[in-house]
């Protein structure tokens, strides 16, 4: 999937040659853009936001994303189709694993080496908007005729930071319940009926336990992600409040969620000391009856022909329906030297692909647009339909710059709590105190 990155052209020989020639000059040029390279002003908005198409000279757009899994080939197919329909716009894709992507993209953009188009998770969008990595996209939204009615409000609002739109929603991917039909049968549970509430959930686990099956693996290292967060949301809690003023780690909903997860381990519904992705490994080896996971798992699970499984909405284990979710959004990176043709072509690309988001459902992702979900073809997309049900109540990370910084504290506290290193309430309250400080510092920094 990975094609040339801009840096790959800098060979050692080229560097040595250049170095010998332009000692001081190059030294400064190569090292200082970090400071000198302020991201330029926004590229000139082209008026129609890409609605009228692009008929200028041939351009090549650099497109960066982190789709390195089963979702990569599907995005590539979409890009190929776009180039077929727009022969004068070529797309060069660079796939960088997400964790690196969010480090490399800002650095590249501030050096003028960033891509034209990118994909970003909403939980990183506000940070990158505040750090001048991405451009406002209100003109594109207008050109596409995008309005809030066509999206679930939560995914629509998540693309906005300080009243300016920075992301065009492509999809939303909420957590769901996966159940293993083989294990269900072994436990004597109807393999076609997934649990929907706490009672039916515990019923499955009890029946499995009576057959010596540990039905729901809780990983102290992995649970801090969508598993625990979904339950916190169901309990009516939050990790960071919408304004980004305080962390809810120490509040009752969060403490209750973690205490309950701990009880699953203590009561033997889960083994102790499960590794980070142990829940999914166990599930795929017919050792666990259920797991909470994202829709991206439908592809790898579907490829495993021996596995009999199903996916459904999360059972309601707390007070309300609720689920962790994230969303892929298209962004346009800031350009130090804006190129009007590329700016137009980028908008045409985003515009086009947003209308094609039905094919993107093949990657397991729920298209963000209601009009796409209402197309008859969408009804044939299988498990995506199950995940689509969560769009009305799933929770995205609030658009607060640097909000992800508090996750380290949450992860550590949840990890320690589930390992039995202390009282969950105490650990979580301590972490909340630190997270509040981080939020306050960020508020000051990005003010």
């Amino acid at each position, binding site marked *: 999937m990975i094609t040339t990155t801009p840096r790959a052209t800098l060979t050692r020989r080229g560097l040595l040659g250049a170095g010998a020639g332009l000692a001081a000059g190059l030294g400064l040029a190569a*090292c200082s853009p970090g400071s000198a390279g302020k991201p330029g002003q926004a590229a000139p908005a082209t008026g129609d936001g890409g609605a009228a198409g692009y008929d200028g000279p041939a351009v090549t757009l650099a497109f960066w994303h982190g789709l390195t899994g089963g979702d990569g080939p599907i995005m590539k197919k979409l890009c190929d189709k776009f180039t077929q329909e727009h022969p004068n716009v070529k797309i060069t894709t660079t796939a960088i694993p997400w964790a690196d992507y969010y480090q490399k993209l800002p650095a590249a953009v501030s050096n003028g080496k960033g891509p034209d188009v990118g994909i970003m998770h909403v939980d990183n969008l506000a940070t990158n908007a505040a750090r001048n990595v991405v451009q406002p996209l209100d003109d594109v939204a207008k050109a596409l005729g995008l309005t809030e009615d066509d999206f679930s409000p939560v995914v629509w609002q998540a693309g906005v930071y300080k009243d300016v739109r920075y992301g065009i929603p492509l999809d939303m991917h909420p957590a769901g319940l996966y159940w293993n039909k083989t294990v269900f049968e072994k436990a004597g549970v109807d393999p076609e009926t997934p649990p929907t509430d706490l009672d039916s959930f515990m019923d499955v686990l009890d029946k499995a336990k009576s057959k010596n099956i540990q039905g729901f693996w809780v990983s102290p290292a992995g649970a801090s992600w969508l598993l625990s967060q979904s339950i916190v949301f169901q309990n009516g809690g939050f990790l960071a409040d919408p304004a980004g003023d305080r962390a809810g780690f120490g509040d009752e909903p969060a403490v209750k969620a973690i205490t309950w997860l701990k009880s699953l381990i203590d009561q033997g519904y889960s083994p102790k000391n*499960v590794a980070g992705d142990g829940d999914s490994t166990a599930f795929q080896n017919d*050792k666990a009856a259920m797991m909470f996971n994202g829709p991206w798992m439908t592809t790898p699970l579907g490829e495993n022909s021996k596995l009999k499984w199903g996916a459904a909405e999360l059972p309601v284990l707390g007070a309300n329906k609720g689920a962790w979710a994230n969303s892929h959004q298209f962004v346009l990176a800031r350009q130090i030297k804006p190129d009007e043709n590329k700016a137009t072509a980028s908008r045409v690309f985003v515009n086009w692909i947003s209308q094609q988001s039905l094919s993107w459902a093949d990657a397991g992702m729920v298209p963000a647009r209601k009009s796409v979900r209402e197309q008859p073809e969408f009804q044939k997309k299988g498990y995506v339909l199950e995940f689509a049900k969560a769009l009305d109540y799933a929770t995205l990370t609030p658009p607060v710059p640097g909000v992800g910084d508090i996750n*380290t504290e949450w992860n550590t506290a949840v990890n320690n709590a589930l390992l039995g290193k202390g009282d969950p309430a105490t650990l979580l309250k301590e972490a909340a105190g630190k997270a509040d*400080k981080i939020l306050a510092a960020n508020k000051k920094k990005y003010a």
Partner: protein
Amino acid sequence: MAVPTLAPAAPPPTPVAARKGRLRHHAWFTPYLLVAPFLVLLCMFVLWPAVYGFFISLHDWDYALDYKPFVGGQNYANLFDPDSLVFENFWNGMKNTLIFVVASVPFLVLVPLLVALLLNRKFVGRTFFRAMIFAPYVLGIAVIGVLFRYLLDTQFGVINAFLGIFGIPAVPWTQSQPWAWIALVAMTLWWTMGFNTIIYLAGLQSLPAEQYEAAELDGAGKWASFRYITLPGLRMVLIFIVTTTILASANMFGQAYLVTGGGPGDSTRTAIMVMTEEGLRRFQMGSASAMSYFLAVLLAIIAVINFWIMRERDS
């Protein structure tokens, strides 16, 4: 850093004809031209970043933001202020780094020495074993990390499956202490010991055989010749190995990042991981630079102490 010179410096001027058939005399700038490529790289990738990094550490610095206020020594002061945001994480990282250095360096210095002594003997398949001992070192940390995550998995890992044959219950290698440290030290030892072994081997082979023969004639045993010939002969090699091993262990990052994720809890989150988090995830580059300078100065002091302890003593 030896500068090769083609001819003695500044010879007296000679007639053009006399120069024929001899090496050409170099101009005054020739030596500088010869070191220039190295110097340029040194300046670009070591000196300039070092100076620039110190400059950054005096600011509240996010490269993407225009507002980078000068804060003087505040970033350094924060490291010693228990109420600051970074204090707890930083010192926890320093503590973890210290634990790893203390736990790993003795093994990384001694085991390769023993292996090198073995590999220095003559036996069938010696070259094969030398290559095998070095082989893991050529693998990148990404490969090693993925490999050991599979090996160390509590429920599905090969190591626990092997131990299970002997009835040993599953060991939570990455989920509980002290197992996490044991796993990290062991994998680091397996991964990097080839490098130190090769250095020791080179040192052993440079020791003159006559000294051993003379010792044998004087009736010295194996231990005595090791103690009075091998060890003193390896002194410079030892200084090098101890110094570089301490530095490498103090900079441990990939193993913990990939295998334990800093866990259980934050008990294997090393100083470098804390800096990465601070500088590259939270984009607090000033603060991260200050941490990194503090660690660098500390390591420099340790290196000096190390040289001083192992200096040649007149008896």
